[in-house]
C-alpha cells in the first residue's frame, strides 16, 4: 500500500522500524561473510571483529522490539500496517539468530586457525555461507519490495543449501573415518555447516513472512526439502 496515512507521523514510525531492520540485515549479512572469510583466510583479527560485532546486532534487535511495542501501543495498527509490525518483529528475531550463528562461526574459526586444513572443506563451507547470505539478502529485498514472487522463489530454492550441506556432511564423515585426528576440526566444521544451513532456513522463514505481509496468508503447502543427513549413516561411505 503506497497511499500515505492521514497522520503522517504514523508513516514515519513505520518507515523507521523498517529502516532499523534493514540496517540490522546489513550487519548480519556482513557478519556472516566476514566470519566465513576469517575462516578461509585464517584471519583472527577479522574473527574477533565479528565476535564483538554481535553486540551491535543484539542491541538493534532490542531497539526494533521496543519500537514495535511502542507502535502497537500508540498507533494500534490494523490490516497491512499490523502485518508490517508483526513481520518486522519476526524478521528481527530471525536476523538475531543469524547474527549468533555468525558469532559462533567466528569463534570456531579462531580454533580452526590452529588446526591443519581438511582438504577443500573450508572452501565448501565458505561457498555455502555465501549462498546463504545471498538467500538472506534476497529475502530482505523481497521484504522491502513487497515482492511475493521473489519470496516464493526463495522459499522454493532452499534445496541447494541443503544439498551443499549433505555433500559436506559426507565429506567430513570420510575425513573422520580416514584419520581420527581429523575428528576435532571436522566436528567444528560440521557445526559451522549446520549453522549456515540454519541461516538458509531463517532466510526461508523471512521469505514466508514476506508472503504473509503481502497476502495476509501464511503459505501452507509443503516446501521442497533436501536435507537427508538425518537419515544418512556410515553406509554412505564408498
Amino acid at each position, binding site marked *: *500500500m503506497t*497511499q*500515505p*496515512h*492521514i*497522520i503522517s507521523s*504514523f508513516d514515519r514510525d513505520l518507515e523507521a522500524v523498517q529502516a532499523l531492520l534493514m540496517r540490522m540485515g546489513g550487519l548480519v549479512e556482513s557478519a556472516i561473510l566476514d566470519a566465513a572469510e576469517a575462516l578461509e583466510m585464517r584471519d583472527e583479527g577479522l574473527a574477533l571483529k565479528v565476535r564483538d560485532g554481535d553486540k551491535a546486532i543484539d542491541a538493534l534487535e532490542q531497539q526494533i522490539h521496543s519500537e514495535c511495542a511502542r507502535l502497537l501501543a500508540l498507533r*494500534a*495498527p*490494523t*490490516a*497491512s*500496517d*499490523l*502485518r508490517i509490525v508483526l513481520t518486522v518483529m519476526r524478521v528481527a528475531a530471525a536476523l538475531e539468530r543469524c547474527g549468533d550463528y555468525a558469532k559462533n562461526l567466528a569463534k570456531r574459526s579462531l580454533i580452526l586457525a590452529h588446526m591443519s586444513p581438511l582438504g577443500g572443506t573450508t572452501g565448501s563451507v565458505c561457498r555455502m555461507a555465501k549462498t546463504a547470505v545471498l538467500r538472506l539478502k534476497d529475502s530482505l529485498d523481497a521484504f522491502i519490495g513487497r515482492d511475493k514472487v521473489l519470496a516464493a522463489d526463495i522459499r522454493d530454492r532452499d534445496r541447494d543449501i541443503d544439498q551443499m550441506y549433505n555433500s559436506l556432511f559426507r565429506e567430513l564423515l570420510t575425513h573422520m573415518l580416514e584419520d581420527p585426528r581429523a575428528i576435532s576440526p571436522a566436528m567444528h566444521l560440521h557445526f559451522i555447516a549446520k549453522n549456515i544451513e540454519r541461516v538458509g532456513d531463517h532466510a526461508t522463514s523471512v521469505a514466508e513472512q514476506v508472503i504473509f505481509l503481502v497476502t*495476509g*496468508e*501464511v503459505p501452507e503447502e509443503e516446501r521442497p526439502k533436501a536435507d537427508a543427513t538425518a537419515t544418512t549413516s556410515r553406509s554412505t561411505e564408498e
Partner: protein
Amino acid sequence: MNVMTVVERDVSETRSKMDARGVQVWYGDKHALKDVDVAILDRTVTAFIGPSGCGKSTFLRCLNRMNDTVASARVMGKMTMDGQDIYDPRVDPVQLRAKVGMVFQKPNPFPKSIYDNVAYGPKIHGLARTKAELDEIVETALKKAALWNEVKDRLAAPGTGLSGGQQQRLCIARAIATSPEVLLMDEPCSALDPIATAQVEELIDELRAHFTVVIVTHSMQQAARVSQRTAFFHLGNLVEYGETGQIFTNPRDPRTEAYITGRIG
C-alpha cells in the same frame, strides 16, 4: 482459514436474525443506500463502520423502520426479521420497535424518575399486570444494564441527575425493559468518557447472550473490541462484511484497508 482468528471470537452462531436484500434508500433525490445485502446473525454483535454520510446510520434506522418518520425517505428492497417482512403493511411499526430497541448517541432519559424511565416501555406495551411484576422488570433491566447497584437506593431520583455514563446505561435499561430481540445502538459511547465507554462495551458483550446487537460506531477500535462481525459502508455501498478479526487484519477490499488503517479513502 483465517489464521488471525481468535478462538473466542469465533462466531458459532450462523442463524440469521435479520436479513436485508437489495435495500435502497433515497432521501429525496439523494441515493443514500445502494443495494445492500446483509444477514445479521442472532446473538452476535455486528458493528457498522464507515466515514460520515456513508449510510451506516441510515441502514441501522431501516432495521426498526425509524426512516418511516422521515418524510422524504423512501426505502426499497426486502427486510425480514425471523423470515417475516418488517415492511409488510400489516406490521405495526410500534410493535416492531418494541422488538427492535434503539439506543442513541446522546443519553436521552425522560425527565422522570429512574424507575419511570425503565417502567415506561413495559407499561405502554402492557407487559406487567401488577406493580410487583413491573418492579421485577425494572430491576432485571437495570441489572442487565449493569446499573442496578448504583441506583437501587434512589429509584425515585430523576434520571437526568445521573452521570453521562449512567444515563446511557439507563437508556440501555429502558431499551431492554421491553424484552426486545434486537438492540440497535447508534454511537452509544461517543458522548462518554473512557471508563463509562468501557462499562458500556462490557455491557454490550454481556447483552450478546440475550440479544442481537447492532452498533454503529465511528471508533474503529470500539468496533474491533466489541463486535464479532463488522460491516464497512462507503458512499452508500456495503463494501465489505465479515468476521471482525478478518476485517481488521486482512480486509479483502482496498477501500476497507484504506479506511481502517487511516489512509485517505
